[in-house]
Protein backbone atom coordinates (compact mmCIF):
# COMPACT_ATOMS: atom_id res chain seq x y z
CA UNK A 1 0.00 0.00 0.00
CA UNK A 2 2.65 2.50 1.02
CA UNK A 3 4.72 1.28 -1.89
CA UNK A 4 1.91 2.08 -4.29
CA UNK A 5 1.40 5.48 -2.71
CA UNK A 6 5.08 6.25 -3.10
CA UNK A 7 4.97 5.27 -6.76
CA UNK A 8 1.94 7.43 -7.43
CA UNK A 9 3.68 10.31 -5.71
CA UNK A 10 6.83 9.99 -7.83
CA UNK A 11 4.84 9.51 -11.01
CA UNK A 12 2.90 12.68 -10.28
CA UNK A 13 6.07 14.61 -9.49
CA UNK A 14 7.70 13.53 -12.73
CA UNK A 15 4.67 14.26 -14.86
CA UNK A 16 4.34 17.74 -13.37
CA UNK A 17 8.02 18.47 -13.89
CA UNK A 18 7.73 17.51 -17.53
CA UNK A 19 4.64 19.61 -18.21
CA UNK A 20 5.99 22.95 -17.20
CA UNK A 21 2.96 24.79 -18.55
CA UNK A 22 0.72 23.39 -15.83
CA UNK A 23 2.68 25.11 -13.11
CA UNK A 24 4.04 28.06 -15.06
CA UNK A 25 0.71 29.39 -16.29
CA UNK A 26 -0.72 29.99 -12.78
CA UNK A 27 2.44 31.90 -11.88
CA UNK A 28 2.20 34.11 -14.95
CA UNK A 29 -1.51 34.57 -14.36
CA UNK A 30 -0.89 35.56 -10.76
CA UNK A 31 1.71 38.17 -11.64
CA UNK A 32 -0.41 39.67 -14.39
CA UNK A 33 -3.54 39.95 -12.26
CA UNK A 34 -1.54 41.50 -9.41
CA UNK A 35 -0.22 44.06 -11.90
CA UNK A 36 -3.74 44.81 -13.14
CA UNK A 37 -5.01 46.11 -9.81
CA UNK A 38 -2.72 49.16 -9.49
CA UNK A 39 -3.44 49.97 -13.12
CA UNK A 40 -7.19 49.73 -12.68
CA UNK A 41 -7.63 51.13 -9.19
CA UNK A 42 -4.94 53.54 -8.15
CA UNK A 43 -1.19 53.69 -7.80
CA UNK A 44 -1.39 55.43 -4.46
CA UNK A 45 0.59 53.32 -1.94
CA UNK A 46 -1.86 54.14 0.84
CA UNK A 47 -4.84 52.79 -1.14
CA UNK A 48 -2.97 49.75 -2.33
CA UNK A 49 -1.62 48.76 1.06
CA UNK A 50 -5.18 48.88 2.41
CA UNK A 51 -6.42 46.63 -0.41
CA UNK A 52 -3.35 44.37 -0.59
CA UNK A 53 -4.60 41.41 1.51
CA UNK A 54 -7.84 41.18 -0.43
CA UNK A 55 -6.22 41.58 -3.84
CA UNK A 56 -3.59 38.95 -3.04
CA UNK A 57 -6.19 36.48 -1.83
CA UNK A 58 -8.39 36.95 -4.89
CA UNK A 59 -5.43 36.54 -7.24
CA UNK A 60 -4.26 33.40 -5.45
CA UNK A 61 -7.78 32.00 -5.54
CA UNK A 62 -8.17 32.59 -9.27
CA UNK A 63 -4.74 31.32 -10.25
CA UNK A 64 -5.14 28.17 -8.15
CA UNK A 65 -8.40 27.57 -9.97
CA UNK A 66 -6.52 27.64 -13.25
CA UNK A 67 -4.54 24.46 -12.69
CA UNK A 68 -6.60 22.46 -10.22
CA UNK A 69 -9.53 22.04 -12.58
CA UNK A 70 -7.54 19.83 -14.91
CA UNK A 71 -6.12 17.70 -12.10
CA UNK A 72 -7.73 14.47 -13.28
CA UNK A 73 -7.96 15.26 -16.98
CA UNK A 74 -4.71 13.72 -18.19
CA UNK A 75 -5.17 10.51 -16.21
CA UNK A 76 -8.68 10.31 -17.57
CA UNK A 77 -7.64 10.76 -21.16
CA UNK A 78 -4.66 8.36 -21.15
CA UNK A 79 -6.66 5.71 -19.33
CA UNK A 80 -4.59 5.40 -16.16
CA UNK A 81 -7.59 6.43 -14.09
CA UNK A 82 -9.48 3.62 -15.77
CA UNK A 83 -6.85 1.10 -14.70
CA UNK A 84 -6.79 2.46 -11.18
CA UNK A 85 -10.51 2.09 -10.77
CA UNK A 86 -10.44 -1.46 -12.11
CA UNK A 87 -7.75 -2.44 -9.59
CA UNK A 88 -9.08 -3.66 -6.29
CA UNK A 89 -7.29 -1.02 -4.23
CA UNK A 90 -8.54 2.00 -2.39
CA UNK A 91 -8.61 5.09 -4.58
CA UNK A 92 -8.35 7.39 -1.57
CA UNK A 93 -4.53 7.66 -1.59
CA UNK A 94 -4.57 8.38 -5.32
CA UNK A 95 -6.94 11.29 -4.88
CA UNK A 96 -5.13 12.70 -1.84
CA UNK A 97 -1.71 12.39 -3.46
CA UNK A 98 -2.88 13.99 -6.68
CA UNK A 99 -4.29 16.95 -4.78
CA UNK A 100 -1.12 17.18 -2.68
CA UNK A 101 1.22 17.18 -5.68
CA UNK A 102 -0.98 19.64 -7.52
CA UNK A 103 -0.86 21.89 -4.47
CA UNK A 104 2.95 21.63 -4.31
CA UNK A 105 3.29 22.54 -7.95
CA UNK A 106 0.60 25.15 -8.42
CA UNK A 107 -0.24 26.73 -5.05
CA UNK A 108 3.12 26.67 -3.32
CA UNK A 109 4.97 28.71 -5.99
CA UNK A 110 2.18 31.28 -5.93
CA UNK A 111 2.31 31.49 -2.15
CA UNK A 112 6.05 32.08 -2.28
CA UNK A 113 5.57 34.56 -5.10
CA UNK A 114 2.90 36.41 -3.18
CA UNK A 115 5.55 37.73 -0.81
CA UNK A 116 6.30 40.18 -3.62
CA UNK A 117 3.12 42.06 -2.73
CA UNK A 118 5.13 43.68 0.05
CA UNK A 119 6.68 45.95 -2.58
CA UNK A 120 4.23 45.51 -5.47
CA UNK A 121 1.13 46.44 -3.46
CA UNK A 122 2.89 48.04 -0.47
CA UNK A 123 1.60 45.54 2.06
CA UNK A 124 3.10 46.49 5.43
CA UNK A 125 6.00 44.09 5.81
CA UNK A 126 5.00 42.95 9.30
CA UNK A 127 1.79 41.58 7.81
CA UNK A 128 3.62 39.35 5.35
CA UNK A 129 4.13 36.40 7.68
CA UNK A 130 0.44 36.43 8.54
CA UNK A 131 -0.53 36.64 4.87
CA UNK A 132 1.72 33.71 3.96
CA UNK A 133 0.43 31.64 6.89
CA UNK A 134 -3.17 32.34 5.95
CA UNK A 135 -2.42 31.31 2.36
CA UNK A 136 -0.63 28.15 3.51
CA UNK A 137 -3.65 27.09 5.58
CA UNK A 138 -6.30 28.32 3.17
CA UNK A 139 -5.13 27.15 -0.24
CA UNK A 140 -5.38 23.40 0.54
CA UNK A 141 -9.11 23.88 1.11
CA UNK A 142 -9.41 25.63 -2.26
CA UNK A 143 -7.46 22.77 -3.82
CA UNK A 144 -9.97 20.34 -2.34
CA UNK A 145 -12.90 22.23 -3.85
CA UNK A 146 -11.05 22.55 -7.14
CA UNK A 147 -10.38 18.82 -7.23
CA UNK A 148 -14.05 18.11 -6.65
CA UNK A 149 -15.04 20.51 -9.42
CA UNK A 150 -12.46 18.88 -11.69
CA UNK A 151 -13.79 15.41 -10.87
CA UNK A 152 -17.40 16.47 -11.48
CA UNK A 153 -16.73 18.22 -14.77
CA UNK A 154 -14.23 15.62 -15.99
CA UNK A 155 -13.78 15.56 -19.73
CA UNK A 156 -15.96 18.62 -20.20
CA UNK A 157 -14.21 21.89 -20.59
CA UNK A 158 -16.68 24.39 -19.26
CA UNK A 159 -16.95 27.24 -16.83
CA UNK A 160 -18.53 24.85 -14.36
CA UNK A 161 -15.35 24.78 -12.26
CA UNK A 162 -15.41 28.42 -11.12
CA UNK A 163 -19.16 28.26 -10.55
CA UNK A 164 -18.60 25.38 -8.12
CA UNK A 165 -15.33 26.45 -6.50
CA UNK A 166 -15.79 30.17 -5.95
CA UNK A 167 -18.98 30.15 -3.85
CA UNK A 168 -17.60 27.27 -1.79
CA UNK A 169 -14.39 29.21 -1.16
CA UNK A 170 -16.11 32.25 0.32
CA UNK A 171 -15.46 31.35 3.98
CA UNK A 172 -11.77 30.79 3.30
CA UNK A 173 -11.53 34.10 1.47
CA UNK A 174 -13.25 35.93 4.31
CA UNK A 175 -11.16 34.26 7.03
CA UNK A 176 -7.89 34.62 5.12
CA UNK A 177 -8.22 38.32 4.42
CA UNK A 178 -9.62 39.03 7.88
CA UNK A 179 -6.59 37.36 9.45
CA UNK A 180 -4.25 39.81 7.73
CA UNK A 181 -6.34 42.94 8.20
CA UNK A 182 -7.06 42.18 11.85
CA UNK A 183 -3.36 41.61 12.49
CA UNK A 184 -2.54 44.92 10.83
CA UNK A 185 -5.12 46.53 13.11
CA UNK A 186 -3.27 45.11 16.10
CA UNK A 187 -5.45 42.09 16.89
CA UNK A 188 -4.50 38.48 17.37
CA UNK A 189 -5.14 36.54 14.13
CA UNK A 190 -4.89 33.02 15.60
CA UNK A 191 -8.70 32.67 15.69
CA UNK A 192 -8.87 32.88 11.89
CA UNK A 193 -6.08 30.35 11.46
CA UNK A 194 -7.81 27.92 13.79
CA UNK A 195 -11.11 28.37 11.96
CA UNK A 196 -9.49 27.73 8.58
CA UNK A 197 -7.70 24.70 9.96
CA UNK A 198 -10.96 23.39 11.39
CA UNK A 199 -12.68 23.81 8.02
CA UNK A 200 -9.81 21.97 6.32
CA UNK A 201 -9.87 19.03 8.73
CA UNK A 202 -13.66 18.84 8.53
CA UNK A 203 -13.78 18.92 4.75
CA UNK A 204 -10.76 16.74 3.91
CA UNK A 205 -12.46 13.34 4.25
CA UNK A 206 -15.78 14.59 2.92
CA UNK A 207 -14.42 16.15 -0.25
CA UNK A 208 -12.02 13.26 -0.92
CA UNK A 209 -14.86 10.75 -0.83
CA UNK A 210 -17.03 13.08 -2.91
CA UNK A 211 -14.17 13.21 -5.44
CA UNK A 212 -13.97 9.43 -5.58
CA UNK A 213 -17.71 9.23 -6.03
CA UNK A 214 -17.59 11.79 -8.81
CA UNK A 215 -14.71 10.03 -10.58
CA UNK A 216 -16.46 6.70 -10.34
CA UNK A 217 -19.41 8.14 -12.27
CA UNK A 218 -17.29 8.12 -15.38
CA UNK A 219 -16.72 4.38 -15.06
CA UNK A 220 -20.22 3.07 -14.65
Amino acid at each position, binding site marked *: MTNLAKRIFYKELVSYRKRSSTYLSPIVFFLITIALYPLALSNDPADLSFLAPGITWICVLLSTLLSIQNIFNEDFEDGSLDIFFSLRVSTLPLVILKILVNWIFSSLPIIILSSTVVFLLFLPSEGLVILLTSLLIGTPVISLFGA*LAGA*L*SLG*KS*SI*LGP*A*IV*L*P*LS*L*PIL*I*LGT*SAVTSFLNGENPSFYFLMMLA*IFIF*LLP*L*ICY*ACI*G*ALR*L*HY*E
Partner: protein
Amino acid sequence: MNRAFNNLKTFYHKLGSSPWFYRISGITIPYVALLSFLFLTIGIVWGVFFSPTDFKQGDVYRIIYMHVPAASVSQSIYYTMTVAAVVSMIWRMKMAGIFIKSMAPIGASFTFLALISGSIWGQPTWGTWWIWDARLTSTLVLFIFYVAIISLYSSFSEKKSADQAVSILTLVGAVNLPIIKKSVDWWNTLHQPASIKFTESSSISPEMLYPLIISIFGFYLVVLLSGLMAMRAEIAKRETNKEWFKNY
Protein backbone atom coordinates in the same frame (compact mmCIF):
# COMPACT_ATOMS: atom_id res chain seq x y z
CA MET B 1 -46.35 0.02 15.29
CA ASN B 2 -44.88 -2.66 13.09
CA ARG B 3 -47.76 -2.30 10.68
CA ALA B 4 -47.31 1.44 10.50
CA PHE B 5 -43.65 0.91 9.74
CA ASN B 6 -44.52 -1.56 7.00
CA ASN B 7 -46.99 0.88 5.49
CA LEU B 8 -44.28 3.50 5.53
CA LYS B 9 -41.90 1.10 3.84
CA THR B 10 -44.33 0.24 1.06
CA PHE B 11 -45.04 3.93 0.61
CA TYR B 12 -41.32 4.54 0.26
CA HIS B 13 -41.01 1.77 -2.31
CA LYS B 14 -43.99 3.13 -4.22
CA LEU B 15 -42.41 6.57 -4.15
CA GLY B 16 -39.48 5.06 -5.98
CA SER B 17 -41.64 3.76 -8.80
CA SER B 18 -42.11 6.24 -11.59
CA PRO B 19 -45.37 4.80 -13.06
CA TRP B 20 -46.99 4.99 -9.64
CA PHE B 21 -45.79 8.54 -9.14
CA TYR B 22 -46.93 9.53 -12.63
CA ARG B 23 -50.41 8.17 -12.01
CA ILE B 24 -50.83 9.54 -8.47
CA SER B 25 -49.45 12.96 -9.33
CA GLY B 26 -51.84 13.13 -12.26
CA ILE B 27 -54.72 12.58 -9.85
CA THR B 28 -53.52 15.00 -7.16
CA ILE B 29 -52.37 17.89 -9.35
CA PRO B 30 -55.86 19.43 -9.87
CA TYR B 31 -56.52 19.50 -6.10
CA VAL B 32 -53.09 20.95 -5.34
CA ALA B 33 -53.61 23.51 -8.10
CA LEU B 34 -56.96 24.55 -6.65
CA LEU B 35 -55.60 24.80 -3.10
CA SER B 36 -52.49 26.71 -4.09
CA PHE B 37 -54.47 29.12 -6.25
CA LEU B 38 -56.85 29.70 -3.35
CA PHE B 39 -54.19 30.29 -0.71
CA LEU B 40 -51.97 32.35 -2.98
CA THR B 41 -54.71 34.70 -4.12
CA ILE B 42 -56.21 35.08 -0.64
CA GLY B 43 -52.80 35.69 0.93
CA ILE B 44 -51.51 38.11 -1.65
CA VAL B 45 -54.76 39.99 -2.31
CA TRP B 46 -55.44 40.34 1.40
CA GLY B 47 -51.86 41.39 2.04
CA VAL B 48 -51.39 43.75 -0.85
CA PHE B 49 -54.82 45.37 -0.97
CA PHE B 50 -56.56 45.04 2.38
CA SER B 51 -54.03 44.83 5.17
CA PRO B 52 -53.35 48.06 7.10
CA THR B 53 -50.57 50.40 6.03
CA ASP B 54 -47.37 50.24 8.02
CA PHE B 55 -46.98 53.53 9.85
CA LYS B 56 -43.19 53.57 9.37
CA GLN B 57 -42.67 52.33 5.84
CA GLY B 58 -45.99 53.16 4.27
CA ASP B 59 -47.39 50.95 1.58
CA VAL B 60 -44.07 49.67 0.32
CA TYR B 61 -43.89 47.18 3.18
CA ARG B 62 -46.50 45.12 1.28
CA ILE B 63 -43.63 43.59 -0.67
CA ILE B 64 -43.25 41.43 2.45
CA TYR B 65 -46.15 39.26 1.22
CA MET B 66 -44.04 38.14 -1.75
CA HIS B 67 -40.54 38.54 -0.38
CA VAL B 68 -40.69 36.58 2.86
CA PRO B 69 -42.52 33.55 1.38
CA ALA B 70 -40.06 33.46 -1.53
CA ALA B 71 -37.06 33.60 0.80
CA SER B 72 -38.53 30.89 3.03
CA VAL B 73 -39.37 28.63 0.10
CA SER B 74 -35.98 29.09 -1.54
CA GLN B 75 -34.19 27.69 1.51
CA SER B 76 -36.65 24.89 2.13
CA ILE B 77 -36.28 23.65 -1.43
CA TYR B 78 -32.56 23.24 -0.88
CA TYR B 79 -33.20 21.21 2.30
CA THR B 80 -35.55 18.87 0.49
CA MET B 81 -33.03 18.52 -2.33
CA THR B 82 -30.40 17.56 0.24
CA VAL B 83 -32.63 14.80 1.59
CA ALA B 84 -33.22 13.61 -1.97
CA ALA B 85 -29.47 13.69 -2.63
CA VAL B 86 -28.83 11.41 0.35
CA VAL B 87 -31.55 9.03 -0.82
CA SER B 88 -30.20 9.10 -4.34
CA MET B 89 -26.66 8.35 -3.22
CA ILE B 90 -27.44 5.59 -0.75
CA TRP B 91 -30.30 3.77 -2.43
CA ARG B 92 -29.75 4.98 -6.00
CA MET B 93 -33.44 5.79 -6.22
CA LYS B 94 -34.05 7.26 -9.63
CA MET B 95 -37.03 9.30 -8.44
CA ALA B 96 -34.70 11.17 -6.09
CA GLY B 97 -32.59 12.21 -9.06
CA ILE B 98 -35.71 13.29 -10.93
CA PHE B 99 -36.75 15.25 -7.86
CA ILE B 100 -33.44 17.15 -7.64
CA LYS B 101 -33.44 17.82 -11.36
CA SER B 102 -36.99 19.18 -11.27
CA MET B 103 -36.67 21.21 -8.09
CA ALA B 104 -33.40 22.97 -8.90
CA PRO B 105 -34.90 25.40 -11.46
CA ILE B 106 -37.86 26.08 -9.16
CA GLY B 107 -35.49 26.79 -6.29
CA ALA B 108 -33.42 29.04 -8.51
CA SER B 109 -36.44 31.04 -9.62
CA PHE B 110 -37.74 31.55 -6.09
CA THR B 111 -34.28 32.54 -4.87
CA PHE B 112 -34.17 34.99 -7.74
CA LEU B 113 -37.57 36.31 -6.69
CA ALA B 114 -36.37 36.71 -3.10
CA LEU B 115 -33.30 38.61 -4.29
CA ILE B 116 -35.08 40.89 -6.70
CA SER B 117 -38.03 41.63 -4.42
CA GLY B 118 -35.62 42.39 -1.59
CA SER B 119 -33.74 44.71 -3.88
CA ILE B 120 -36.89 46.49 -5.02
CA TRP B 121 -37.93 46.78 -1.39
CA GLY B 122 -34.53 48.08 -0.41
CA GLN B 123 -34.54 50.90 -2.91
CA PRO B 124 -37.22 53.04 -1.21
CA THR B 125 -36.47 51.97 2.37
CA TRP B 126 -32.67 52.01 2.47
CA GLY B 127 -32.07 54.18 -0.58
CA THR B 128 -30.03 51.58 -2.47
CA TRP B 129 -30.88 48.60 -4.63
CA TRP B 130 -28.23 46.46 -3.09
CA ILE B 131 -26.12 46.38 0.02
CA TRP B 132 -23.57 43.77 0.95
CA ASP B 133 -25.48 42.60 3.95
CA ALA B 134 -25.23 39.08 5.35
CA ARG B 135 -28.65 37.86 4.33
CA LEU B 136 -28.42 39.25 0.82
CA THR B 137 -25.00 37.77 0.31
CA SER B 138 -25.91 34.30 1.48
CA THR B 139 -29.07 34.36 -0.62
CA LEU B 140 -26.92 35.29 -3.60
CA VAL B 141 -24.63 32.34 -2.83
CA LEU B 142 -27.67 30.07 -2.61
CA PHE B 143 -28.74 31.30 -6.04
CA ILE B 144 -25.27 30.55 -7.45
CA PHE B 145 -25.52 27.05 -5.97
CA TYR B 146 -28.82 26.43 -7.73
CA VAL B 147 -27.37 27.67 -11.01
CA ALA B 148 -24.27 25.50 -10.57
CA ILE B 149 -26.48 22.45 -9.93
CA ILE B 150 -28.55 23.16 -13.03
CA SER B 151 -25.51 23.67 -15.23
CA LEU B 152 -23.75 20.59 -13.84
CA TYR B 153 -26.82 18.54 -14.64
CA SER B 154 -26.98 19.83 -18.18
CA SER B 155 -23.30 19.07 -18.78
CA PHE B 156 -23.95 15.31 -18.54
CA SER B 157 -25.56 13.40 -21.36
CA GLU B 158 -26.10 10.23 -19.33
CA LYS B 159 -29.04 10.76 -16.94
CA LYS B 160 -27.87 8.30 -14.33
CA SER B 161 -24.45 9.83 -13.86
CA ALA B 162 -25.96 13.31 -14.05
CA ASP B 163 -28.21 12.39 -11.12
CA GLN B 164 -25.29 11.11 -9.08
CA ALA B 165 -23.05 14.06 -9.90
CA VAL B 166 -25.78 16.52 -8.98
CA SER B 167 -26.44 14.62 -5.73
CA ILE B 168 -22.77 14.89 -4.80
CA LEU B 169 -22.73 18.61 -5.51
CA THR B 170 -25.99 19.16 -3.62
CA LEU B 171 -24.61 17.36 -0.57
CA VAL B 172 -21.29 19.19 -0.61
CA GLY B 173 -23.25 22.42 -0.96
CA ALA B 174 -25.52 21.50 1.93
CA VAL B 175 -22.54 20.82 4.17
CA ASN B 176 -20.88 24.07 3.15
CA LEU B 177 -23.90 26.36 3.19
CA PRO B 178 -23.97 26.68 7.01
CA ILE B 179 -20.23 27.43 7.01
CA ILE B 180 -20.71 30.05 4.30
CA LYS B 181 -23.68 31.52 6.12
CA LYS B 182 -21.81 31.71 9.42
CA SER B 183 -18.74 33.26 7.88
CA VAL B 184 -20.77 35.78 5.91
CA ASP B 185 -22.75 36.69 9.05
CA TRP B 186 -19.59 37.17 10.93
CA TRP B 187 -17.92 39.11 8.10
CA ASN B 188 -20.94 41.40 8.11
CA THR B 189 -20.50 42.28 11.78
CA LEU B 190 -16.94 43.34 10.95
CA HIS B 191 -17.95 45.60 8.08
CA GLN B 192 -21.27 46.86 9.35
CA PRO B 193 -22.30 49.85 7.27
CA ALA B 194 -23.08 52.47 9.87
CA SER B 195 -25.73 54.40 7.98
CA ILE B 196 -28.09 51.50 7.33
CA LYS B 197 -29.74 49.82 10.25
CA PHE B 198 -32.17 46.96 10.12
CA THR B 199 -35.12 47.55 12.35
CA GLU B 200 -36.58 44.11 12.81
CA SER B 201 -40.18 44.71 13.79
CA SER B 202 -40.48 42.16 16.54
CA SER B 203 -44.22 42.48 16.99
CA ILE B 204 -46.21 42.47 13.80
CA SER B 205 -49.91 43.14 14.12
CA PRO B 206 -52.27 40.21 13.46
CA GLU B 207 -53.95 42.00 10.56
CA MET B 208 -50.55 41.97 8.86
CA LEU B 209 -49.49 38.55 10.07
CA TYR B 210 -52.47 36.44 8.95
CA PRO B 211 -52.18 37.26 5.24
CA LEU B 212 -48.43 36.65 5.49
CA ILE B 213 -48.95 33.17 6.92
CA ILE B 214 -51.54 32.38 4.25
CA SER B 215 -49.23 33.68 1.57
CA ILE B 216 -46.33 31.55 2.85
CA PHE B 217 -48.61 28.53 2.82
CA GLY B 218 -49.68 29.40 -0.71
CA PHE B 219 -46.08 29.64 -1.86
CA TYR B 220 -45.32 26.19 -0.44
CA LEU B 221 -48.37 24.80 -2.20
CA VAL B 222 -47.42 26.35 -5.51
CA VAL B 223 -43.91 24.95 -5.15
CA LEU B 224 -45.46 21.54 -4.54
CA LEU B 225 -47.62 22.02 -7.61
CA SER B 226 -44.85 23.08 -9.95
CA GLY B 227 -42.59 20.40 -8.48
CA LEU B 228 -45.17 17.72 -9.22
CA MET B 229 -45.66 19.03 -12.74
CA ALA B 230 -41.95 19.29 -13.45
CA MET B 231 -41.37 15.76 -12.12
CA ARG B 232 -44.16 14.43 -14.30
CA ALA B 233 -42.64 16.09 -17.34
CA GLU B 234 -39.22 14.71 -16.43
CA ILE B 235 -40.58 11.18 -15.94
CA ALA B 236 -42.34 11.40 -19.30
CA LYS B 237 -39.16 12.59 -20.94
CA ARG B 238 -36.97 9.88 -19.44
CA GLU B 239 -39.38 7.00 -19.89
CA THR B 240 -40.90 7.87 -23.24
CA ASN B 241 -39.92 4.51 -24.64
CA LYS B 242 -41.00 2.47 -21.63
CA GLU B 243 -43.95 0.14 -22.12
CA TRP B 244 -46.01 1.58 -19.22
CA PHE B 245 -45.74 5.10 -20.54
CA LYS B 246 -46.79 4.12 -24.05
CA ASN B 247 -49.87 2.40 -22.68
CA TYR B 248 -50.73 5.13 -20.18
